[in-house]
């Protein structure tokens, strides 16, 4: 039967995986961030700063805070990914499925509690510092990854799972070869959400002495120095955009072909 009448196939796609919108976003965003950063950088090199401002905005100080901020974000994300995804997988397995509303409810509480409150409470209980801040941030960002993992796995067509089982794949093989690859897009969008949440809330880490670019904002407010405040806010915003961009890149390239 070489002739197809009604049953015509869609044309094969020539390796196109991204829509035009996505391409614009993926290329345009870093360019915009670079442009704004360049403007700030020129201002920073040429501005007439007073003593206090100059001391708060030394290159060294900014680099240190930026690095702390990135570290808070990435370490937090790594921990969230390493805990929430396995938990999401566990909660979609037949034995534990009934526990999932309970755990999601708990994670919901973690997200709805104000981070600043969480951070301060943890600091009072566990002391100040980097790891305590990371703990607070993780609780905050846990939910989107957990929820997306569960939703991503649940939306996999059950007939595909049955087909895989019926062909003789073990439950583990079904998970790793069918369920997870098909859930990756949803899970990765949860991870991106977590990244963006973390990069924003890491600004609050400075309140419990865990560093980050939030320090510029608090200094700016405390000392009534607008250039410091604005620099801090601007750098956080740019970093957030960049992290969001990185998340999108990750999403685009982890998405399995053919999906």
């Amino acid at each position, binding site marked *: 039967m070489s002739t197809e009448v009604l049953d015509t196939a869609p044309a094969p796609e020539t390796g196109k995986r991204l829509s035009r919108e996505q391409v614009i976003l993926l290329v345009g965003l870093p360019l915009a961030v670079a442009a704004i950063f360049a403007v700030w950088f020129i201002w920073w090199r040429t501005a007439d700063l007073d003593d206090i401002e100059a001391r708060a905005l030394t290159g060294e100080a900014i680099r240190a805070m930026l690095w702390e901020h990135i570290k808070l974000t990435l370490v937090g994300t790594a921990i969230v990914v390493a805990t929430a995804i396995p938990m999401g997988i566990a909660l979609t397995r037949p034995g534990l499925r009934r526990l999932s509303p309970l755990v999601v409810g708990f994670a919901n509480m973690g997200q709805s509690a104000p981070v600043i409150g969480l951070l301060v409470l943890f600091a009072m209980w566990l002391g100040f510092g980097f790891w305590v801040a990371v703990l607070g941030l993780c609780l905050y960002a846990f939910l989107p990854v957990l929820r997306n993992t569960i939703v991503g796995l649940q939306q996999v067509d059950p007939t595909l799972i049955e087909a895989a089982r*019926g062909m003789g794949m073990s439950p583990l093989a079904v998970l790793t070869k069918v369920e997870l690859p098909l859930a990756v897009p949803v899970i990765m969008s949860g991870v991106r959400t977590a990244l963006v949440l973390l990069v924003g809330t890491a600004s609050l880490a400075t309140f419990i002495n865990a560093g980050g670019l939030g320090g510029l904002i608090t200094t700016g407010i405390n000392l009534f120095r607008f250039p410091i405040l604005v620099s801090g806010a601007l750098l956080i915003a740019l970093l957030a955009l960049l992290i969001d961009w990185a998340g999108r890149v990750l999403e685009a390239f982890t998405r399995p072909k053919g999906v």
Partner: protein
Amino acid sequence: MSTTSTSATTASGSQERHGAELVFDSVSKRYAAKGRPAVDSLSLNIPAGETVMFVGPSGCGKTTSLKMINRLIEPTSGTITIDGEDIRSKDVDTLRRSIGYVIQGGSLFPHMSVRDNIAMVPRLLKWDKSRIDARVEELLEMVSLEPGRYADRYPRELSGGQQQRVGVARGLAADPPVVLMDEPFGAVDPITRQRLQDELLSIQRELGKTIVCVTHDIDEAIKLGDRILILQEGAQIAQYDTPENILAAPANEFVEDFVGAGSSLKALSLSRVDEVELQETTTARVGEDARAALARARSAGDRGVVILDDRHRPIAWPSLRELQYMDRIPATRDDRLPVVDRRATLNDALDEMLAASQDGIIVTGQRDDYRGIVRFEQVTAYVQEANRNAERAAMSRLSTQEQQRVDAEQPSGATVDADRERVEPDATAEDLR
């Protein structure tokens, strides 16, 4: 399709395995402790190498019965054996890898290429790479998909019918003796469905697997099945017999209702195209002198010329008028060319003729090669002939049934024995009147 299939078989060093015998021994499935069982004590013997169609109204337990064979559903009681071996004696995954499974719409894994989808079970069985590659090519050829063009596509880049073909290829990948099909062609349009059915028939003719296929479409069952199992609620066997016998002598009112009216037209689904005498017509090769072909056709009294490509496959069927204006026979493929496989039913042939508004249809053989044509008049003549035969058969059956009634009561016997018809004399005799 091409001839490479046979060479691929030798390359992969495998001789296709034939079917295995499948036996249900009072198999029951109960979902709740109380209430009616979904399958109630089903006993059934499916001979090796036959296609058995499970049909019945929805909720009759046909899918449950099918899924118990590969243990996607575990029976509550009773045993199922494949070639005498209890299916519970093996590890469940090992068992499933030895049973083909084809599902509605193909159920292909969207994130895997056609090649990876088909290679799934061979990989689970740890075949080496070259053997898997050869097998994938062979199977794609078998289901009429050019390997070079389709092997690396993703399912969403295929049409519904093509996806379903890949689904069939995937089910056959590891050369299982038993293949289970769950409404395999339910999700495609009627014309595609008919072609897929024809292909399955010709594949099955080559392979001789034991196929168990669930469908709700009685016409599909008549066309594909060596035997049909008609189930009532609780997977009670209403009748288990060949399509011919079921059409000619429905066991009871339920079967009769299910098979439906118009059995002389249904009989068209029982008759294959190759049962009527194929007619010759003028053919011409691509690139040949058109005028010579025209002259040949005129002297033979034909109204058209069937154009064949270099592999002897029909690609177009222009009328003599169209041919007049050509110098050479062109290689253009007519997408609406009315073609059927010689194993297609007369019903399908008639369908195609009506769809193409032609009073004839081209018949092709195993590798899509040209065999001849069938004309509309032949089909109508065949129907009239079949009608006369059916009437005569009904008359003679009536008289034998009268005879049986006079005879002593016969033990109704186990329904397992398919060769012996279980005719309920009262119902049939009454309904035939």
